[in-house]
């Protein structure tokens, strides 16, 4: 059965190292990848009225990041079924558990030493992930996306 795995990212190519290692070490065929970026929801009512997840993702995404995703897609063409970028806006552990349940996530991979480079309004989801009760694997890597 297809597995769904979750990787926290910060829209830098480096943060995709976690995914690269996860795919390298666990040769799982047919995996759905969800790249999660966590960000506090805006307080402005007008902003909320015109809220669009796609637009937020588009504002953060860089050509480098997209290119890195396509490199990984090409490398693990048979393993990866889909790669999706999702936003997480929750404030507490319960909302994160809901998120996991809704997305039917089976496993989470997080970087061991790398700390996510947060943008404005972003927050670090690692504490939630560690308390979520799902199997969490820490991936250790040091250098940039190439040559690791």
């Amino acid at each position, binding site marked *: 059965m297809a597995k769904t795995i979750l990787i926290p990212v910060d829209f830098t190519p480096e943060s995709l190292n976690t995914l690269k290692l996860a795919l390298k070490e666990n040769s799982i065929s047919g995996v759905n990848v969800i790249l999660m970026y966590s960000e506090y929801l805006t307080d402005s009512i007008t902003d909320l009225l015109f809220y669009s997840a796609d637009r937020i993702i588009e504002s953060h995404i860089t050509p480098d990041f997209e290119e890195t995703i396509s490199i990984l897609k090409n490398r693990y063409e*048979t393993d990866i079924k889909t790669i999706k970028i999702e936003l997480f806006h929750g404030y507490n552990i319960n909302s994160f558990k809901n998120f996991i349940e809704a997305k039917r996530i089976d496993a989470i991979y997080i970087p061991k030493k790398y700390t996510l480079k947060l943008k404005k309004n972003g927050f670090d989801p690692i504490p939630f992930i560690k308390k979520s009760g799902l199997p969490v694997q820490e991936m250790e890597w040091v250098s940039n996306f190439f040559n690791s």
Partner: protein
Amino acid sequence: MKTQYKIALFLIVANTLILIVFGGSVYYFLYNYSYTDFYKRLATRASITAKYNFDTDNKNAESIKIIREQHLEKLSNEKEHISLINSFNDLKTFAEKSALPLNFIKEIYTNGKGNLQIGNTFYSGTKYKAGTNVYMVIISAENYYATHHLALLKNIILVGLFFIIFITISLSFYFSKHIFDPIRNITYKVKKISTDNIHLRLEENEKDNEISQLILTFNNLFNRLETAFETQKNFISNASHEFGTPLTSIIGEADVALMKERSPAEYQETLHSILSQAERLNQISQSLLFLAQTGYRENRLNFEILRTDEIIWQAKEIIDKLIPKNKIQIDFSLLPENPFKLKVSGNKQLLTLAFVNVLTNACKYSNNKNVLVSIASSNHQVIIEIKDQGIGIPASELQFIYDPFFRASNTHQFEGYGIGLPLTRNIIKIHNGLLLVSSEVNKGTTVQIKIPLIQYSEMKF
């Protein structure tokens, strides 16, 4: 036609049109209004006249007459025609008596009221019933307002129009002449700058408008031109230096050898030294020729479909022969599963040469430390990253690395004459690729080469 006159003409025509439409509409609407208003006034007078003439209540009629005489101003040439109408014949006699067309009288009889204009005189009539009698009242007057006031208005508008058009024309010419002053200024100054005084720049003003942007653009252009000139000058001095050194040493060796009789072994040694210098000369001139050839895009190159990983293996084989101590590792951990994602269109010899150049540099300037080569491919391009742990390039000199014969300040202990990287860049450019170099002194240099893939749709047969 000069742009200046175009602008002036446009302004004049546009303003005149607007003025004419404005003045014309003011006149037209006022003209219309004065007529309807005048008929209304006549109609009011007619009905009042009928009231005080035929009203059965005499007292009331008298007071209405007084009010009319006191408050309603007398119109110019105002006349009243009153008649009792009992039969059709009465209409006829009334028409004859008042010298009005019968049709008008009939119209008033059937409609109850009617308006008519004959020349400057306006007529307004009304039918009035008092008991069993039917009366008809027609008031006529000349429209003093229309004939005099409107004529005055027409004059005012026409004179105003001419004045304003005159002002518009002079303003338009003044404006169109002076709006191009800064541009004429720039043209004048740019004309003065030639190859002899290319260091001159236009004066930049603080304001952030189109003109200052134009000046900035020109200055940037001059900066680039100046750099190109400098590069060319440097190239000549560097090239003559590179050619001069081996030549001087050849001449020196030959001179010394010819000073007196020497043993065959000594001659041999001299000849060997001369030969090696000549070979070096040959190498430089050949690589220069190659650089010049790859500098043109429009030359007949054979492009074929190539696999990037194969080219890298070939380059590595060549390096293995040139530098047997090299430690090049090729990392395939990001190699795409689909071999189509590695295929590029290119010239095999040139691409191999490019990679050999970069790899040789990586080995040479790191004294054969580890060199890591990784290949990855996105949907549009193959990315090859070559990372060494060498001496690096000082940040201030990164911009010059593509100048022929340029060598970074920290490369004195290494042999080379600075043609490899420019040549590599030319080759990558021919293949529509990108060459990115980032470096940190004493830590190493990372070279990223990106070459566009052959698009999948083109390859499906």
